[in-house]
Each structure stands twice: as C-alpha cells, then as structure tokens.
C-alpha cells in the first residue's frame, strides 16, 4: 500500500482544535478526506491532541458513520428505516450487491467505485424505499431501477463537474410573481433541484415577471417536486410531480411574455394538462394531483401550523422574510419585556411537553435549570432524530432554522444560559448546512452573540454533528457525545438539568419543542393550551409514511384521532389494501391496530395502549405487512443501536431478536412467545435509559394485538406472506408467457418459455418479489 499522506491530519487538527471534545469533528474531517480512518491517521491525531488512543478507538468504533477500512469512491447509503423496510429496502440492498458484483461479506465492488451500506433512516420516509449516493438522494426505488440509478448518478457526476453550483436565494418582490419550490433533502430527492434550475432558466429566457424562490417544505412530500405559482394578483396554483421539461410550460402559462402569441400559450396549456397526468419516469414517481382537488385540501385542512408556521411560503434562509413574518418578535418581547420567571410561567401555562418522546413537562425542565445557581449553564437542541421512520426534525431544521434558533434563545434567556449546542445527526447534511448558515446570519444581524437586541442577554450557538448512533438521542448519551466520548447513557439522577454538559446545569429539548416556543410567546400560552386534550396541549408534528397515499410532514392538534391522520390527511392506504396497524413512535413505540385507530393522539392514551408518542414517526401498515417481521425489524434495530452497557439491553435484546428470527424462519418453539414476554418485562424494568426501557414495546404491542400472527408463525405460516422462509412464489394459469419475469429474475429461477406458462424454481428463488412486480397479468402467487 502507498504511504498515506498524513499532512491533512495536522491541518485538520490545526483548524478544528486539539481538545478531547473535538474528536468527532476531527474524525469526520479525516474520513471526509480519506474515505475511512486509517490507524496511522488516528495515531497521528493522538500525537497532536489531548485525545488518547483508548478514547479515539472507543469513539471511532462506537459510531456507525466511521469506517476503518478503505471505501469505494462513492458511498451508497441504502435506507432501511421503517418505511423503507416495509417497502422492500433490504431487497434494494441485495439488488445493489448483485448488480455491483460485491462479494459476500464485503461492501465494496471489485473496482472500488461504490461502497454500499445500510443506514438506519435517511429521514425521507415518504419516498421509500430511498437511498443516498454521496449527496444525491433517490426515492421510490425498485430492484428494477438499480442499474438506472447507478447510470443516472454517474451522469450527474459528469454534469456537475462541468457546471458549478450557483447559490443565489431569490428575494421576494411584491412587484413580481413568485414561483415557489421546496429544496429540502427529500424534495431534492424527488428531483426538485433540477426543476428549480429549469424554472430559473425558463424565467430568464422568457423574461417572465417572476422570481423563482426556494421555500421551506409544505409537508406535501407526496407531491414533490411541488411547484407553487403565486402571480402578483395572489391566486396561487400548485403543480405536483413537475419535471424539468415542464418548467418552461409552467412559466409561460402564468407569466405572459411579450413576444409570445396567445395561440402558443393555449397550445402550451393543453400540453401541460397532458404532462400532468403522465407517469413516465421511474424511480421518481409522479403524481397528478392539483391543489384544487379535494384530496390535497384534505391534507391541509385538518392541520394547524405552529412549528411549521408559514409552511411552503417562506424561504428557509431569508432572515428578512422571517422577520416580516413575525420572526424574532417573540425573542424581542422576551428580552425586553419578560423576566425569566415570566417566560417559564408562560411555558407552564401553555402546557407544553417535550416533543422528543417522553412528554416531560417543559416548564419543569426549564425551572430546574433556572433554579440552580451556576455561573455557566448550557442549552442543547436535540436534533439527533434517529428513529427509523421519523423525519420531523430534519424538515423543521431545513425549513425553519430561524424559528428553532429563536426558540432556543428564548429558552437560554429563561434558564440563564449563554451558550448553546445544536446536536444534529450526520445523516442530515442539508439540515446542518442550513442551520449553520442561519446561525451565521443571526450572528451578523445581532440575533445571536453578545448583547442580543441591544439588551444584556448574550447567547452563542455551536453545532455538533452526530456520527450515527440512535442512542445519542438519549440526553445523557448526547452529552457524552458532545464531550467527545462514546455515546453511553448514564444512570440518572443526577439529571442534566442539575449536572449536564461538563458537569454544568444543562437544558436539553427537542427541535420541535423549541420550534413552538416563539409562537407561544407571541400568541400567548392560552392560545396554545386551547388546542389539544386535557393532558396534551398544542400541536404535534408527525412524519407520515408507509403504505399511505399521501406521506409527508403534518402538524395536527393533539387529540386528533390516528384514523383522521391516516385517512383524512394521509388519504388512506395505497394499492387497494386495508389498513392493518399504525406504527407510532418508532423503536420505542408500538403498533396500534386498526381497531384502535379511533384513539386520540395524546401522550397518555398512546402509552396506555402500549405505544408511545416517541418523536412522532407514524408508519401505516397494511395487510401485506407481517407483524412478527415488524417486531423483528425493530428489535434488530435496537439491539444494533444499544450502546452495549446494561446486560439486559445488550444481551437481552439480542436474545429476543434470536427468538423473533427463529419465528420468522418458521423454527419457533412453543415457549417462544412466553419467553419474549418474560425478557421484555425484565429489559423494560431494569434498563438505565429510554432506549432499553422502551425497546420491548414493538414486541409487546404486536404480541398484544396480533398474537394470532405469532401463533401462525409457530405453526410455520406467515399470514401476510412476508417472511421469506415461510413463503413460496409460483406462477398461476393467468400467465400468458410474456417472459418478463424470466428476463428480470435476478437469480435465474425462471426459465424463459415464450407463450407458455412459466415456472419458478423454488431452490433458486430468492423471494425478492421482482417477478411479481413486473408481471402484467398478476400471475405470480405468493403463499
């Protein structure tokens, strides 16, 4: 092997710093530069910094972001979050492995171009199954689309090399019309960046009286790329599933260019109508829903926008626009008119509870930190949204960075802190980029820094990027991570409010909690408390995904029923199947069966039925989803993500997984269900942190509501036809001999017999479902 050039290490350390707490950042820099972490580089870091060999080894092997062997030039991150799991994420992984000829047990193709890895969740659940190649996200994948994705990526690489990215954020102008498009990561994954460029080009070329504007997400990800046209007269139109080729037509339809005759415009309009019903290109599925159609109205009308106020209309990074829309009014009011006690009293009256999962009353945390005398206190914003199937925090940060900064600043004022940390998971590069830019802007404009708004209050914010560890969402683990240690939770008490970051009183709240604070201060606590139920006030943001017609980010008043969210907002289940259950709260939550879908969304009600609010992931499951498989999926996740400290969590979750795997393979033992319950109870009662304590929930809730499915697996049946070992694929008499299945079968299990009924060799069949998806006569039977 060539001698490694380690000069970069010294440069990185020089730039980042040599303190122990810098370890994550240094490692990220090295990996960014070299693609992995060679031992020589780590040893060099130890020579140059206060970081010890033991610490750097412990940290670099704890977080899944880091790799210790060379990688290919590009990394393909295949999401296996809940929504992607139920839509076949693992099969996409297998397809890449086959397509790239990656040897068993390896993760990189022989030419060292691509490295594939599974990631817990990319937070683009409504595009499931989804993957990321370097910075580019691809959604709605099928195993069939894999070669196309690779080709597209390599072409984009070429194109990008030729064209430098232009970064100008359009300023709004009352004289002009606006063409708004969301450029958050999941919309970009649906192609909105290309549409954005095409729209700009079309406006320039036609000299239309309009500006093209990047805006925060409307939440209607199922329509992405969604273009909203707001002419100067104010009546807006929305176009869903827009392609770059449509850009010119859209511009022409709404903005009359002087040179073009009326006749042409009419032609263009007819053409547009045709395009909007076209479903051509895979993998990005297009939709043909107009905002004036009833379904979209349904998506919006049950929602109440507080954390997502002005959704879809303001530019995430345009501070002036934020200010014009009441931005920083709450902070202004706080620092000039309210005492810390008054702020805390307002929060108390609003009834706000932590939006990160457990629902701890927010004012109690704030007043505990406030009450402790200390010259130094910290405020932390927890943006380590690790739950597979959740993307609220990502979209909030990407779309409303100023709001979250404002909320955190108000909190800092209330508890007496002058320094804050935003801890954001590394899988969200755009969120990190936007919040950094927003912080810089705030500093330049005096909303952060010393003597904010000419008062006595000072507040600085730093950003720490996580490195891939779900457990770091637990507050004590998150603190350990910021301090540059392995993200291991510790026994509480003492709580972080008493002894947190570097032993100082520390307030930790979730992104969404901070996001609603400015609204509460501006509109008064009563306005917030009027929404919701007796014990759960205000609104909750949910990430809606799974087998649902309209996935996306929704903000609803507490107390709304799960059924209303799924059916009225989400448009119900796709593909003509029936809703079976709703997974609420990710790996800490549970599955709410359809019979209980009428229950209101409220912390206590969800706990009572064995689920949990969690951070707000909501994944709809239909009859084709196996509940034992879902339980196995979550246990696989938690036992992977366990920090490995407590005996029950470390080994107990693995033993539960052993049993679930046995069940899914049809090798269950009679006592298995009982054994699962027995282990679950002990894990829940003894674990130190929330991860372990709630890890058994997905298993317990599925046993509780779907015991018959467990029983069926004991008898060697998977009623949903999902567990590979328990199902067989066969061809029915409906086969017309078109040979499509044979052409597409990745394992050569179907011999090509034109005009004859085909047959599937069960020994060669890998149960990937490709034949079923390509068959045009529905002649593939799974049982």
């Amino acid at each position, binding site marked *: 092997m060539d001698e490694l050039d380690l000069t970069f290490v010294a440069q990185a350390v020089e730039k980042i710093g040599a303190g122990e707490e810098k370890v994550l950042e240094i490692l990220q820099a090295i990996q960014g530069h070299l693609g992995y972490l060679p031992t020589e580089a780590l040893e060099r870091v130890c020579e140059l910094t206060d970081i010890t*060999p033991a610490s750097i080894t412990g940290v670099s092997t704890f977080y899944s972001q880091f790799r210790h062997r060379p990688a290919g030039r590009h990394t393909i991150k295949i999401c296996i979050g809940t929504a992607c799991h139920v839509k076949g994420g693992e099969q996409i992984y297998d397809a890449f492995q086959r397509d790239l000829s990656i040897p068993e047990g390896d993760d990189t193709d022989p030419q060292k171009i691509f490295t594939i890895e599974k990631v817990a969740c990319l937070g683009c659940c409504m595009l499931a199954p989804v993957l990321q190649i370097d910075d580019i996200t691809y959604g709605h994948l099928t195993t069939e689309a894999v070669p196309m994705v690779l080709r597209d990526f390599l072409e984009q690489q070429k194109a990008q090399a030729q064209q430098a990215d232009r970064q100008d954020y359009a300023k709004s102008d009352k004289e002009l019309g606006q063409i708004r498009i969301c450029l958050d990561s999941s919309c970009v994954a649906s192609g909105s960046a290309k549409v954005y460029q095409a729209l700009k080009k079309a406006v320039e070329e036609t000299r239309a009286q309009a500006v093209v504007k990047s805006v925060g997400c409307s939440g209607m990800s199922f329509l992405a790329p969604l273009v909203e046209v707001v002419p100067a007269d104010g009546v807006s139109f929305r176009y869903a599933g827009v392609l770059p080729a449509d850009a010119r037509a859209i511009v022409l339809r709404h903005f009359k260019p002087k040179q073009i005759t009326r006749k042409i415009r009419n032609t263009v309009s007819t053409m547009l109508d045709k395009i909007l019903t076209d479903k051509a290109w895979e993998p990005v599925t297009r939709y043909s829903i107009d905002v004036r159609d009833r379904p979209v109205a349904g998506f919006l009308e049950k929602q109440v926008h507080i954390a997502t106020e002005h959704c879809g209309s303001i530019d995430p990074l345009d501070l002036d626009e934020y200010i014009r829309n009441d931005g920083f009014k709450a902070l202004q009011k706080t620092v000039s008119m309210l005492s810390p006690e008054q702020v805390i009293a307002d929060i108390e009256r609003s009834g706000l509870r932590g939006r990160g999962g457990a629902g701890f009353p927010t004012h109690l945390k704030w007043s505990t930190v406030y009450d402790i005398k200390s010259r130094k206190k910290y405020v932390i914003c927890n943006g380590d949204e690790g739950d597979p199937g959740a993307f609220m925090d990502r979209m909030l940060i990407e779309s409303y960075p100023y709001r979250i900064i404002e909320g955190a600043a108000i909190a800092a004022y209330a508890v007496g802190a002058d320094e804050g940390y935003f801890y954001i998971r590394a899988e969200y590069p755009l969120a990190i980029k936007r919040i950094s830019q927003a912080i810089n802007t705030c500093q330049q404009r005096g909303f952060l820094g010393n003597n904010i708004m000419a008062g006595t209050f000072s507040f600085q914010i730093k950003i720490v990027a996580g490195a891939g560890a779900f457990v770091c969402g637990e507050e004590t683990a998150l603190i350990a991570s910021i301090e540059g240690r392995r993200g291991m939770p510790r026994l509480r008490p003492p709580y972080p409010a008493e002894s947190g970051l570097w032993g100082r009183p520390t307030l930790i709240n979730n992104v969404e909690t901070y996001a609603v604070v400015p609204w509460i201060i501006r509109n008064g606590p009563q306005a917030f408390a009027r929404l919701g139920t007796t014990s759960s006030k205000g609104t909750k943001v949910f990430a809606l995904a799974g087998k649902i017609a309209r996935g996306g980010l929704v903000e609803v008043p507490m107390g709304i029923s799960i059924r209303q969210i799924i059916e009225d907002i989400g448009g119900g289940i796709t593909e003509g199947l029936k809703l079976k259950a709703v997974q609420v709260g990710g790996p800490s939550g549970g599955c709410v069966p359809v019979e209980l879908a009428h229950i209101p969304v409220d912390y206590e009600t969800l706990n009572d039925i064995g689920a949990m609010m969690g951070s707000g992931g909501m994944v709809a499951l239909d009859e084709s989803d196996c509940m034992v498989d879902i339980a196995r999926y979550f246990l696989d996740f938690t036992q992977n993500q366990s920090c*490995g400290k407590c005996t029950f969590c470390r*080994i107990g979750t*693995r033993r539960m997984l052993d049993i679930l795997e046995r069940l899914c393979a049809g090798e269950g033992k009679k006592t298995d269900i009982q054994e699962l319950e027995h282990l679950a109870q002990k894990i829940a009662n003894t674990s130190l942190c929330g991860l372990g304590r709630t890890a058994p929930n997905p298993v317990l809730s599925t046993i509780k509501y779907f015991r018959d499915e467990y029983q069926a697996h004991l008898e060697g049946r998977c009623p949903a036809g999902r567990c590979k070992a328990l199902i067989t694929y066969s061809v029915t008499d409906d086969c017309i001999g078109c040979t499509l299945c044979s052409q597409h079968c990745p394992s050569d299990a179907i011999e090509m017999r034109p005009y004859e009924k085909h047959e599937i060799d069960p020994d060669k069949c890998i149960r990937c479902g490709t034949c079923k998806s390509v068959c045009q006569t529905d002649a593939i039977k799974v049982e």
Partner: protein
Amino acid sequence: MPRLTIDNRQVEVDNGATILDAAAKLGIEIPTMCFLKGCKLSTSCMICVVKVNGSDRLVPACGTIAQDGQTIESDSEEIRQVRKAALELLLSDHAGDCIGPCQAACPARMNIPLMIRQIAAGKFRDAIATVKKDIALPAVLGRICPKPCERVCRRALFDKPVSICLLKKYVADLDLQSANPYLPACKPGQDKRVAIVGAGPAGLAAAYYLLKDGYGCTIFDEHESPGGMLRYGVSQDKLPTDVLEAEIALIEKLGMEFQGQMRIGTTLSMEDLRRDFDTVFVAVGQLKPGDAESMGLETAPNGIAINGRTYETNLPGVFAGGGAVRKRRLAVRAVADGKEAAVAIGQYLSGQPVTGPANAFNTRIGKLKDGEIETFAAGASKTRRLTPSPEGSGFTDDQARDEAARCLHCDCRKAQSCKLRQYARHYGARPSRYKGERRSFVQHLQHPDVIYEPGKCINCGLCIQIASQARESLGLTFIGRGFDVRVAVPFDHSIAEGLKHAAKQCVEACPTGALAFKNKT
C-alpha cells in the same frame, strides 16, 4: 442524613451514600460485579438491582443515592429472578469452561487440570493431595480406570488426548514409593461411628473420607482381606496385589477397622449394625438374590433403591452405593460413590439437612468452532502424546513433566474467585437458558504474566478505568457497540503493550476469568 428502610430494617446514612452503602451498613450483602470502590460507576451488570418504594422499575443499588424515607427491597423473589436472568444472559454470551471437560467427565470430579499443572511444576506432593481430595485409591485406578476423562480431553482435537490416567498413576506410585506417603489431615475425632458393609472400592473410599472427617469406621466384608472386586475380580497383571494393599494400608493408617468373613444375613444382621453404629453404608457390590431383602432394603431395577443425590435408602440412617446400586460397575464410579456418600453421611451425622455434595457450577463451551482448537493449543507444548515403554510401565519424571505440558488448560484460571460463577450458583442460573450463537473463544497470551480471554468478559469496564488511572499510554478501550462491544487494546496492539504496569491490578479487579494470571497452580 437520610433515613431509609431496607428489607424492613431502618438505617441512617451520610448524604450522598448509595443504597449499596446503606445496605452494607446493615450487613445486608447486595451482589455486585461491575462495581469497585475507587472506580467510576459502570452500572452495567445489573446484578445489584433493588426495588425502591415498590416501583416496577428496578435500580442498581451501586449507583442510586439513598434518599430519606425510601423503602428498599433487596432480596424478594422478583429481584432474585431478575438477577438470575441477568446472570443467565451473561452466561449465554460466555465463551469459557469453569471446569475442564476432563474434570466434568470424571465420575469422581477430580481436579485433573490442577493435578497436571502441579506435575508440570514439579510439585508432586501438591499433586497427590489434589488427586486424593477426590480419589481415595489413585494407584489402583491408575491401572484399571476406563478413563472417561481422556475421551473428552480437548487435546484430542489437536492430536491425541493427554495421558491423564498415566499421570495420575505416576503421581500415586511416586507417593507410595516415598518414605512418607501422603495422608490427609484428619479432623478431630467425632463421637460417631459408621459401619461399612463391603470392602470394595466404594466402601474403602467412603471409609477414607469419613475417617478424614473424624468419624470412626468399621468395614465388614465376607472375604478374609479387604479389596472386594479389586482383589478378587481383577487380574494380577493389571492390578498387582501389593499396590492395592499399599493403598488400603494408608486407609488403615487413618484408623479404619477391618472385620473379615462377616456376611450380612448370616454372621451379621442389619438390626445389629443399626443398633451398634450411628449409620450404615451398604457397599456390598453386585447383589445376589435375596441380599437386599435380608437387609430390609428396597430395590430398584439396578439394585438397592437410593436417593440419587444423597445415597439414602428406605431405612433411616442407612446409605448405599457402589455396585450394589448400579448396573454398570465401574471402579471409578464406585470410588466416587464412596466419596459422595461420605458427604451425605457426614451431613446426617452432624444433624444438617442431608443434601449430598453440592454440585459445582459449570458453564461449558461445548462443541468448538473452526479454528478454536488452535487457540486452545497456542499456549501448550506441541510435543506428541508420550507412551512409556515397555507398555504397562509408568512415566519417568521427565516424561511426566513433558506429558503434563501438553494440557490445554481448558479450566478457568479464576474458577474459585469468579463472581459470575459464584452468583450463578447462588441464584441457580442455568447457563443454557438463553442459548444463542456463542461468541468465539479467543485468548491473548502476549503478556508475560496475564492472559486475556474476551469471551469471558462482562463489559464492566473496570480494567479500562484502571489502565487509564494508571496512565497507561495505550491502555484498554471498548470497541464497537451493542451486543458486539468488546474490550481491547487500541490499534490492535497486544495486551502486553496495553497493560505495561496496570496488569496486576486489572486482574484483581476483573470480576470474571477474562483477565487472569497465567500460571496459577
């Protein structure tokens, strides 16, 4: 100063004291493994869990600060079940044997690996003491034992099993030939006497261990001389009479009385024996028709009916063992019966509950995975199995040492001090409760004094802390996350480089056999 109640007893402790401290003040022992005074809390093993104020959740006593007015339960059935489950989970991920397969297979449970190491170290006196702790007639068995131990010897997977039986014979012969053959220290004389019927291997062994415990023993036998089948059923070629007599002589030296030509049913009656002695041990060998009935004993298909653990018969105070209770008659089994029955008889005579000998807790690796035998063999001599010539002769001193060096040391170096084992026994943990794929057996041997076996680690992290406190330049660290987390030296360095000065301390702090001193005999 918080006042609290633990198991219904009040205690007052200093501010900041933990529940563990408070319990200690009351003399209540809460089990701990990952806790060590002077180290930062690990709160990971969860063996010290207690219940506070009736909450469903259990908390670790080692890290929970005692609060005024708390009510703590430290030993309820629920808590015992949780502790047991914690131990069973740890054991499900444990790659190591407490006792070697040879010892586990030996009917007499003789500590074979220890004997072998004592031979290798030239400590012959210690070796014979080890042997005689479990086998009263080693020179005899060294000649006639069918060697179940060698059938399971792990070395056989590498080349050939260690010559365990010949090594035992070597030690026993050496002892008999010495000026001063080994005699165990006997407890002071007890005022209780045992009648043993039958002077075969079971009767002689029972006499040996009862005498050692200070009980008077009289052996009755129908033959003129003691030895039973050993004297009358084995050929002189295999077992010369002088060897048998030399070992019996040692038992007589301990105080055994022998009365020959006494046959129960004719010259003796069970009533007489039960009247004249405090207990009777029936070891008459294979029963002839009517034998059991003449003694008033019930029979089972294989012989006299006994309680398999305590050797008790249907008659109070009458025990039976050896060939009289078994179909297959094996001298080593009979010797084991004699030893075990002696334990039960001792319990009976001293008024304790009669439970028989306690079972040593053992967790086993079981079948080895590919490559693991090489790991085991790495620390042992590569010499081939030695066969003394001419056949039937024993080892020379050098041969014995060479052969002993072939032992793989399968048994745990910390079998006596391992907390995991102690608590597993105490809480009745079953190692196979949560069978899953076991981790690999790995040994790190590079350190001159210390061996590291990650498969036995419970991830308490004490060694990591101690190394860090000792300012080791490399030290130790956790590697990985979740189920696969392991303790290792950074950057793949050896344990010798990782622990340059803290090794001894780490071994002492390690609650299991993961870190141990290499050469402990």
